[in-house]
């Protein structure tokens, strides 16, 4: 089943890439090949491989349980929230929340997680923003 889905996805993505590449309008040709051929060929190879995988599936992929998948979806949403909030809220509060939340996820006690979130985010900020002079978003603090 996994191989069938993977193959179908490859065919769709590759086909879309080929379709887009062929439809580009090239005002002038700098060289005999032009910018359309390479992505079109790569996309076609992708489609062919997708067909080979999808039409002759082999077993072997082992997916995690539903509970584990939900946990992973939650983790990804957690990351998306981190990315979305980083600029408006600033590095320190978001990173403290992410570190503490992640620590809880991996089995830390509440007090450990809280201390870790605060100390860890300040340490990282001190190292990168102050020490290496790479500005991090300040958000509500700045």
């Amino acid at each position, binding site marked *: 089943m996994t191989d069938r889905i993977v193959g179908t996805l490859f065919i769709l993505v590759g086909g879309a890439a080929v379709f887009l590449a062929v439809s580009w309008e090239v005002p002038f040709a700098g060289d005999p090949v032009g910018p359309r051929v390479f992505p079109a060929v790569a996309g076609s190879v992708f489609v062919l491989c997708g067909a080979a995988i999808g039409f002759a599936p082999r077993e072997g992929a*082992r997916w995690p349980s539903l509970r584990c998948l939900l946990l992973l979806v939650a983790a990804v949403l957690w990351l998306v929230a981190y990315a979305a909030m980083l600029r408006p809220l600033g590095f320190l509060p978001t990173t403290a929340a992410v570190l503490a939340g992640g620590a809880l996820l991996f089995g830390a006690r509440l007090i450990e997680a809280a201390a870790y979130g605060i100390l860890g985010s300040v340490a990282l900020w001190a190292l990168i923003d102050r020490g290496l002079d790479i500005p991090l978003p300040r958000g509500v603090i700045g």
Partner: protein
Amino acid sequence: MSGTLKSLSAGFAVALTPLNLALAAIGAFVGTAVGALPGIGPLNAVALLLPLVYALKLPPESALIVLAAVYYGGGYGGRIAAILLNVPGDPSSVMTTLDGYPMARRGEGGLALSITAIGSFIGGVGATVLMILAAPAIARAALAFGPAEYVALMVFAFALLAGVGGTRPAKSIAAAAFGLLLSTVGTDSGTGIERFTFGELELLDGVDFTVVVIGLFAVAEVLTLIEERAARVSLVSTPLGRSFPAIGQILHTLPTMLRAALVGFVVGVLPGTGASIAATLSWTLERRLVDRTGTFGTGDIRGVAAPETADNAAQTGAMVPMLALGIPGSGTTAVLLGALMLYNITPGPLLFIQRPEIVWGLIASFVVGNVVLLALNLPLVGLFIRILALPPWALYPAVVACAFSGVWAVNNSVLDLFLAIAFGVLGWAGKKAGVPLLPMLLGLVLGRLIEDNIRRALALSGGEVFVLFASPIALGLWLFAFGILFAPRLLQRLR
């Protein structure tokens, strides 16, 4: 020869500047520490450091020196958990557990750690010497390569990866094709038209390499770890015993180490193979050659030294095709190559002539870094052992925070953060579905180079496609590539 010595001393002048010396030491320390941690390997560490190094605007030779030091430092660190916990920190340390863990259980953990530190040193420095001897010849030979030969060589590299990797070739080739597609995102240099940018201004310069690397090797790694909930390993508390080997033990192991350095270097140079094959091959070879009493696998000092020496020699050997031909043989060298490309430097034979400070500075830094690592790993090994006791809850969230600060540091872009998450999910799903990530990374790194060379070759020939196969070198490489991909299938049919 005198030319080589002159280049080498110029290289030491670069490697021994205070900045580069400090970077080599920091890289070596970080590499050993990260290599010692279970679940995170040198590739992850290099991936995490890459955006920071780039954002700091370090000169290219300094960036390469620190990233490379993390890489081979990781080779030193991987052995610690393998010997003390029977948990290989990375795939190349699997063979180290065979003789290392029995030694640790006998109370000879200290001896196993120190002899492998010496072995890693001999592997790293020995391979560097071999590299110094081989590099000019390889660079000279590579000068015969025109655009057509380059294209053929890169196709050959992909074929090796697909044929040797052990995964289904269709999946490897698909991954490579996807990487090539990704490399075309952005403004086409030849005509200025936008390809796959979907009107997004931030994509005009293409998908940032650092973003893909962080996604595939930091975010995806954390997702995998959440899935496995990495069981907390407990440290065995057997006494380490004496931690310096006797001179007699070193002499007893020296021939094994020298052979393993040679084996590791040769295997490392070949693309598509790598440190784990080198370690396996070297352990098996030594068992055939020197194991007369059947002690290999029960805690033989030579059995623990051989794979660790070969491991480090292979890591250094993998730098040769990366520097001389621009063809990375492993994930980490692909990242290092991508790092060079971030500086608009194209690796290859001309690099030796145009930017000798990079090539020879890096080579000299291998010697410096290995000396630092030997010093770190003999007396300070206890410090790294303590790192093993770090709880996972402190470790993995920090990887996420470092990854995000790194991606932010490069472009201050929120879109890049979302892309990194997307590539993380992609990398995790790819691993699950048996689609390898390395060909994709290679496709992304080499894509522009391949396309440019094809277009250059065909512009020279006036659009005649046969020019790609015209020279004997190019034709031979194409034939080899197809042979590797299709020979196993054909042989099966014939039977």
